[in-house]
């Protein structure tokens, strides 16, 4: 690699190499370091949402947050499969997949097998399942490009797609994650930051109800850090929900005209 020994570390890892790249910052020292995309530690990437991305679906949404690009379609409610027992509440079926070109190394997205169940858990509490008995709603998410914090983006986008499909919900679900790097907490980490993180925390919540629908934590956390991280995420979620809401309003006023 030509940058070997060079002073400026490259921020773009092109393809698998046998060398580990050191992080371009000093997690254990007090030296101020900058995030490679120039954001502040507590600053999210700009988020973009649009509903109605897929014509053939009952509802759909496209979300973009930095390099992370996600598309979600919602189909149904339609009759549950025969093998399913009668149920007086509706069923939710979620699936998250990655395109083969989503990650820098081809086909690495399949590592995230648990995302489908995580999406299901995050959304289930927000949906009024009683409003579509005996039937199933399918939520299919496709990560077009993975740029870090994929799951929170998928979850936010999916709740928007559900709203677009007219599924009754108590509230939108917004997701955010925080990485712990040394002493610092950084919100909305990109893939590179995620790969060096000491710990991570993801919250999805219903901002109007102020209720957490899903919470996962890994790594080592002290109480102070944990509380700060949770607060950061909750603030980010309520801001994100505003953007999502305005996206829905725009779509609604556009369809009126």
């Amino acid at each position, binding site marked *: *690699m030509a940058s070997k020994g*060079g002073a400026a570390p*490259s921020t773009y890892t092109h*393809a698998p190499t046998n060398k580990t790249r050191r992080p371009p910052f000093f997690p254990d020292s007090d030296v101020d370091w900058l995030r490679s995309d120039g954001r502040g530690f507590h600053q999210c990437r700009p988020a973009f949402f649009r509903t109605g991305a*897929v014509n*053939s679906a009952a509802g759909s949404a496209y979300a973009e947050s930095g390099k992370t690009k996600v598309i979600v379609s919602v189909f149904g409610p339609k009759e549950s499969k025969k093998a399913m027992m009668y149920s007086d509440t509706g069923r939710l079926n979620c699936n998250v997949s990655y395109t*083969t070109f989503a990650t820098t190394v*081809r086909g690495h997205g399949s590592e995230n097998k648990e995302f489908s169940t995580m999406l299901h858990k995050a959304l289930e509490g927000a949906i009024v399942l009683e409003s579509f008995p005996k039937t199933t709603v399918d939520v299919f998410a496709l990560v*077009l490009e993975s740029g870090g914090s994929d799951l929170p983006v998928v979850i936010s986008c999916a709740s928007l797609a559900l709203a677009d499909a007219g599924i009754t919900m108590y509230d939108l679900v917004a997701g955010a994650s925080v990485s712990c790097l040394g002493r610092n907490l950084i919100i909305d980490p990109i893939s590179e930051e995620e790969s060096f993180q000491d710990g991570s925390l993801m919250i999805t919540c219903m901002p109007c109800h102020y209720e957490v629908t899903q919470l996962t934590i890994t790594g080592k956390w002290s109480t102070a850090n944990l509380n700060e991280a949770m607060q950061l995420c909750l603030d980010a979620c309520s801001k994100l929900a505003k953007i999502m809401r305005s996206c829905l309003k725009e779509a609604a006023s556009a369809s009126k005209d």
Partner: protein
Amino acid sequence: MGLPDASGDLSSEMEVDAFRRLFPLRYFERHLSESIRPDARPLGRARDTTLALGAVASAHGSALAKIGSTTMLAAIKMEVMTPFNRVTGRRLHWPAEAAPVISKQLSDTISSSGMINLKELSLVSGKAAWMAYLDIYCLDADGALFDAALLSAVAAFSHLQIPIVSLNDDGKIELISEEDDGAKLEVEPVNKEKRKLTLSSIPFSLTCILHKNYILADPTAEEESIMETAVTVVLDSSSRLVSFYKPGGPVLAHTSAVQDCVALTRQRVKELQNILDETLSGMEID
């Protein structure tokens, strides 16, 4: 809905909608006899077509093709490998998302059209070559899937930027990352000149539905489900026939109908070529 003054209009609208659902074939035939389609297109016209290049930053070449609301995302990733067939190797990979039939048709079309000169994918003769992985995802399906898939594939190949590589001391190929480009290089890149593929005779296609004596170009999903006989013609940019598919169907086509399909395709190829050229030149200005 439910405004008192609009209720008269609404009820007639509902009737049309109900008629469309209950008697789809008659609904369509009534339109066809007036030489128009329910979406206000003349029979031989394709839907609005747009192309966007470089939609996927993590791929080496990518394109998003939209024909009406049918949307296809194609992306190419390049990897270095030892060629398994003497000089060069290339494999096309199709995800399960696209129907296997379309995948087969596409790989046949692309390889038989001679669009890609496999020699250009060779790096060090007999030792290293590029493997191009092409993946196409259908984001929205509304008819004419093959046409959109082929268009996105062709556009992705025209957008493809082959990464620069160098040969290190051990005789292994190493990638040179973009940012070091222009900086002083320790080693001379192997393929400084060959960063774009020269695409010769690019194939384009048009799918037509045959119904009685009508020929409907570029059908929507609804049209495809009601009238089952489809004909797909693939021509290259110099109007030579690359492939022709008519997978059965209740309508047996006269040779004149086939000629009409080919004629429609010839027009369409010019349109598509223009769209591709404009998109490519738009990229260069940026």
